[in-house]
């Protein structure tokens, strides 16, 4: 990252009794970036955002904001702000009062508060008439915008999001994802977003950090993580994937351990007797016509076909008993019947070798 680090975690660990929720996390968040932390439930991402926002303190390790140590600074002393999963709007207050809450604390006078609230309503495309409306009278999407406006009124250095979109229906979520992305560009603020939904992460963020069991497994752009995952967990977490255990046979040649892989002349950077996992995304597997060549090929039997709208997915049974997933664009649909014998192939240039310790 070219830009400056605004938030830095150094060996941050959080334990609850004997349970380690966060295990020695080190992470740099760049000024102005949109970072999404993704992980399944229980991976520690909620604990992480609570530490970042100052609602909890780490058991060990340090957190720096613009170079200043803020590890034990409580939330109300930090120049950061969070949008809660529940949104945490004040139900007994109007939209205007909610947005003005941080401004009132800062001691702005009534006119200045109102002016800023009106600006924010406009920025978030809420009608000015909503100023005096009770928040409980607003729809789900409107409440999201009010919560965002309130957080922006605080004018935080970093904005944290704790899965605020998870309770919304699909269409509204998609709309708000786009709006958030646009808002990030407009405000130029650092956004740190937590979610269990990879789709959300890929749609919005500059950079993704994947968490598992209290550790950050990998960080990178969506494309980096999708194409070159560090381990099987990330590979599988990032969508459908075919994984082949392989063993080097010397000179860059290799053999499949679970099923026979007919390798052509192409080679892998794999030492003799070394084991690794060869990953191929379903969209890079081809049905080979007789005589057609690929770096790697294997035989199978067509088991299932799933129409996914713009794409079609095929499940192909392999001799070893495992199944392989192939995906084609609907317009390039493979014409076959269940039970057909098929030859599949892929090129090593489209594969990725996962070496795990």
């Amino acid at each position, binding site marked *: 990252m070219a830009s400056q680090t605004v938030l830095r975690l150094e060996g941050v660990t959080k334990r609850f009794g004997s349970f380690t929720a966060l295990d020695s996390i080190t992470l740099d968040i760049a000024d102005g970036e949109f970072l999404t932390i993704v992980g399944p439930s229980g991976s520690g991402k909620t604990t992480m955002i609570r530490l970042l926002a100052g609602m909890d303190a780490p058991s060990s390790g340090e957190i720096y904001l613009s170079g200043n140590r803020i590890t034990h600074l409580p939330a109300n002393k930090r120049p*950061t*702000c969070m949008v809660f999963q529940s949104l945490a709007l004040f139900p007994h207050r109007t939209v205007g009062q909610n947005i003005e809450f941080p401004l009132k604390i800062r001691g702005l006078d009534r006119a200045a508060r109102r002016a800023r609230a009106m600006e924010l309503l406009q920025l978030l495309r809420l009608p000015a008439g909503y100023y005096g409306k009770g928040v409980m009278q607003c729809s789900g999407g409107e409440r999201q915008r009010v919560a965002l406006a309130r957080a922006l009124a605080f004018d935080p250095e970093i904005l944290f999001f704790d899965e605020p979109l998870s309770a919304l229906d699909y269409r509204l979520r998609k709309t708000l994802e786009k709006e958030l992305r646009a808002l990030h560009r407009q405000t130029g603020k650092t956004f740190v977003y937590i979610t269990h939904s990879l789709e959300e992460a890929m749609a919005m963020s500059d950079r993704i950090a994947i968490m598992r069991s209290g550790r950050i497994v990998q960080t990178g752009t969506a494309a980096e993580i999708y194409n070159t995952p560090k381990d099987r967990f990330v590979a599988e977490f990032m969508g459908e994937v075919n994984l082949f255990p392989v063993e080097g046979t010397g000179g860059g040649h290799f053999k499949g351990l679970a099923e026979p892989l007919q390798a052509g002349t192409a080679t892998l950077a794999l030492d003799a007797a070394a084991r690794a996992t060869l990953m191929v995304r379903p969209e890079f597997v081809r049905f080979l016509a007789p005589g057609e060549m690929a770096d790697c090929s294997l035989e199978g039997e067509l088991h299932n076909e799933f129409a996914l709208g713009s794409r079609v997915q095929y499940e192909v049974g392999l001799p070893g008993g495992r199944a392989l997933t192939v995906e084609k664009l609907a317009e390039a649909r493979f014409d076959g019947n269940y039970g057909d014998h098929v030859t599949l192939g892929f090129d090593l240039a489209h594969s990725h070798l996962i070496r795990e310790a």
Partner: protein
Amino acid sequence: MERIEERQGLLSALPVLILLGAIFLAPLLVVAGFAFMPPKVFHLAHLPSFENFRIFFDQGYHAPLLRSLGMAGAATVLLFVLCYPLAYGMAKIFGRFSLAITLAVVATLFVSENIRLFGWVLTLMKGGMLPGHLEAWTGLEMDGLLYNLPIIVLGLTYAYFPFMLFPLVQGISMVPDDLRLAASDLGASRLRIFLEIDLPLAMPGIVVGSLLTFVLAAGAMAESKLLGGQAVIVMADEIETAFTYGQNWPLGSALALILILIVGGLAILALSKIDLDGIMGRRS
């Protein structure tokens, strides 16, 4: 469907309605009727008169009334201050330990209030447990700690503790933790969070608790009788005296009516300000 359900509601409420009508509403109406009878009559077949209310003002009955209301108010405020921190702990912090506190507080209700107050008398009277020990240790002569106004307020505070505590617990647990966190995250101090988030959102519980304690304490007699002796006369005493020794049902009824109207008016005013469905868990 809805009409059948409405009828079922009315039918199932009928036994209670009849019971309440016969033993609650009817006597109240009789009292209200007697309040407007001439003094010292024993049936309602007289011309209405406001004589009793004139007596109320002329003979200084407003003093015991104000005393009752004042002590009830003091006890309510004291209870709120005492119970709020405990209720907060029970709702948000203590976890399973709050069950133990609940049981302990409820257990005190198993013993009749009069017996518990006699315990206070034995503890606080001249030569009783507390003054007696102090006398023995210090060698100074001690008076009893009974028969004054503050001790009655303390007695009321003690007697109505559960009636404040449990509604407060209920009210405070209605305030989502996220709101407190969010307010803090937006820079609010603890005091501001208490004033702007906790207090308004726990208000249904606060109002219910305060109302219960105030209404009960305003009509309470046992505390002033046992702890106050003859030194402190409250409104309930005067009402009882009018009905019994005084043999003046109309005066007693008028005094009762005044107390009912004041306390009832306060109750209606307070309840109109809060969302009772909220605290009963029926908010949609």
